[in-house]
């Protein structure tokens, strides 16, 4: 006998103001092939258009000559404010294609709500995330860091592993939810709050945790970029050493460069130069965090306090595909124009996904995770900054690193 297409379920008692019994179209009942998750055009189009218009009003995306974007507004404001240590203020605050769209989505969702007819289309976020993660692969070419030398690369790798492990360990002492701690670890070790969003589907973190964690990482980085130059000036290290220490100790590219230029012109140039070392190792950072948390969940599968990767039964297939693409990128399969074209699609992809994420979040879901995340970020970030400065200073003094 043929299964009914919909399964009637009375969820009137669950709805705030029910007027009639609701009908839940269970996915299993309507599934014909894996393409069934695309839904019909009629169902998906309103949400897709919502994402599209938020994305093109947020960022200057390839193929869309729209001058009225949040990105252009921030650029205008940057010119009004003037550079901070040679860096645009909104770059230091990590304005980019993810956060612009997320911010506009938050504003739209909180000001006007999210109509029901958008929701099937907005669920495309779950297709856009693996799509974007895989297409990021060609962006990280290890040989780009080779010119920096083995010493700085080894130092960056060690910093990455130690920071991630320290974050995950201290999160238990500070009683930070393990999903949020994982996201913070990803943001800190990669130095890029993009990684917080990338980790969201792997860790099964809540959207509010991701945004809360990212705000903490950005705020700490901004404060660190003000304090670090003062520390560097009190250490007797070369401008090149200072640039390396700031690139690895602060993490985020624009914040590290800003701190570098505050310490001195050459230190600023070197902070940008060594930023690429941190950048190409970024996938190792979020893969390490996922691996640690997934292994932990397998070991403590009956522990209710272990939430990170809960619901992830095996390593997601798209991570294997990402690893293969990353490996192919490192043998230079993706030549430069193709790489640029792929990265332009990544911008499209994450702009659309971030719009859906922003729409999903009432502001209280960001604040409800409180300040523990910021405390953890500040503690680990401070330890990392001091440790990196100490290690670079010791290496230079003892001649283990010639910079």
């Amino acid at each position: 006998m043929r299964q009914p297409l919909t399964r009637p379920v009375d969820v009137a008692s669950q709805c705030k103001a029910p007027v009639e019994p609701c009908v839940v179209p269970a996915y299993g009942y309507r599934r014909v092939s894996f393409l069934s998750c695309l839904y019909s055009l009629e169902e998906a189009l309103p949400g897709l258009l919502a994402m599209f218009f938020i994305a093109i009003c947020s960022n200057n995306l390839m193929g869309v000559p729209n001058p009225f974007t949040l990105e252009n507004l921030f650029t205008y404001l940057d010119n009004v404010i003037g550079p901070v240590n040679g860096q645009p203020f909104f770059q230091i605050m990590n304005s980019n294609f993810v956060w612009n769209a997320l911010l506009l989505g938050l504003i739209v969702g909180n000001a006007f709500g999210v109509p029901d007819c958008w929701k099937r289309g907005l669920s495309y976020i779950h297709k856009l995330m693996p799509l974007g993660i895989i297409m990021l692969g060609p962006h990280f070419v290890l040989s780009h860091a080779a010119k920096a030398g083995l010493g700085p690369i080894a130092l960056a790798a060690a910093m990455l592993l130690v920071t991630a492990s320290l974050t995950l360990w201290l999160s238990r002492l500070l009683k930070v939810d393990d999903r949020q701690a994982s996201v913070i670890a990803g943001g800190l070790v990669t130095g890029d709050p993009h990684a917080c969003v990338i980790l969201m589907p792997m860790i099964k973190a809540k959207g509010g945790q991701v945004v809360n964690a990212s705000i903490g990482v950005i705020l700490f980085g901004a404060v660190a970029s003000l304090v670090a130059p003062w520390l560097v000036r009190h250490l007797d290290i070369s401008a090149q050493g200072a640039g390396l220490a700031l690139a690895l100790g602060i993490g985020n590219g624009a914040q590290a460069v800003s701190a570098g230029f505050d310490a001195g012109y050459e230190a600023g140039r070197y902070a940008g130069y060594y930023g690429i070392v941190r950048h190409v190792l970024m996938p190792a950072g979020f893969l390490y965090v996922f691996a640690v948390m997934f292994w932990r969940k397998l070991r403590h599968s009956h522990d209710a306090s272990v939430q990170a990767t809960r619901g992830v039964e095996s390593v997601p297939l798209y991570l294997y595909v990402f690893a293969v693409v990353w490996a192919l990128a490192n043998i230079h399969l993706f030549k430069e124009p193709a790489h640029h074209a792929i990265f332009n699609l990544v911008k499209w992809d994450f702009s659309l996904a971030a719009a859906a994420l922003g729409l999903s979040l009432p502001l209280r879901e960001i604040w409800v995770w409180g300040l523990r995340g910021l405390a953890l970020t500040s503690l680990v970030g401070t330890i990392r900054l001091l440790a990196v400065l100490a290690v670079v200073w010791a290496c230079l003094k003892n001649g283990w690193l010639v910079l």
Partner: protein
Amino acid sequence: MNPHPHTTDKTGFDYMANSGREEQDRDAVGIVLALGLMGLLTLCQYLGLY
């Protein structure tokens, strides 16, 4: 528990929920699209179409 106002529609569909067979299918669509797009762009490069 009340339905999430921003993500759940009146039928109970929550667009941020992602699990089970539907999650696998969504991942599969993402993977197919990613490989298709990257393959196409890379092929264009190797065929000298840029």
